């Protein structure tokens, strides 16, 4: 049985330090585990009250595509969990415009509210971060 955040993380972080964390997602879901396991980090990390941004670049934009149905491949459909991010106060989700357009997608194809940013804006946002996590 998968551990819940509460089972392993104990008390909320009370250290007081707030850093800017950016999670960079560049891979498609399901073909590899990175998308699913990176989402788990974001969820656990939410208990630490840091300043979190989640960025979807390149094939990462596919992670938040609507209508994913993993029934026939028999894997867990973790895409629904992206909608829980809001409840965890993780609201800064950014999609790179160039990546989305190159893949013929628009915001209407996504299952969570995001802010679309240009490459340059993503780069400048990254420059502000204290910690950048890639998967």
């Amino acid at each position, binding site marked *: 049985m*998968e*551990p819940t955040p509460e089972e*392993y*993380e*104990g008390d909320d*972080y009370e*250290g007081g*330090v707030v*850093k800017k*964390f950016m999670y960079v997602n560049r891979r498609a879901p399901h073909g590899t*585990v*990175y998308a699913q*396991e990176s989402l*788990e*980090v974001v969820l*656990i*990390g939410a*208990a*630490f009250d*840091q300043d979190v941004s989640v960025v979807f670049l390149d094939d990462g934009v596919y992670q938040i595509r609507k209508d994913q149905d993993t029934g026939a491949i028999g894997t867990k459909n973790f895409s629904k969990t992206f909608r829980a991010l809001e409840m965890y106060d993780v609201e800064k989700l950014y999609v790179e415009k160039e990546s989305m357009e190159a893949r013929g997608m628009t915001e209407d194809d996504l299952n969570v509210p995001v802010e679309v940013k240009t490459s340059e804006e993503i780069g400048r946002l990254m420059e502000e971060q*204290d*910690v*950048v*996590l*890639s*998967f």
Partner: protein
Amino acid sequence: MKLSVVLNEGPYQHEAADTAYHFIRSAIAKGHEIFRVFFYHDGVYNGSRLTTPPQDDRNIVERWSALAEEHNLDLVVCVAAAQRRGIIDESEQKRQGKDANNIAPGFRISGLGQLIEAGIESDRLVVFGD
């Protein structure tokens, strides 16, 4: 400075495990402190006690254990990733009712919060992966 490292890939399969190791050794040589090394995704396999690589090649797992002992490093294997991949310690073995455990010396199994804490407490955090 206080540095932390995240390693996302297993030994031998990807060079990440080697690059991370050499980076850490150099950081220590330069007088930096390694706050934590966190093993995620297939990186948890770096903590498998049961690897038996050929004698004429580096022993990645033993190398981590030796480095941990020499420099008192905190090597943390993510519990969720470890459970998926079958890397367990004695307490997990009992908890899950398994017939064996396989964690290598110097490693401990803990939650993803340890990764976030490493980011908060360290001056720099570097990710090695594929």
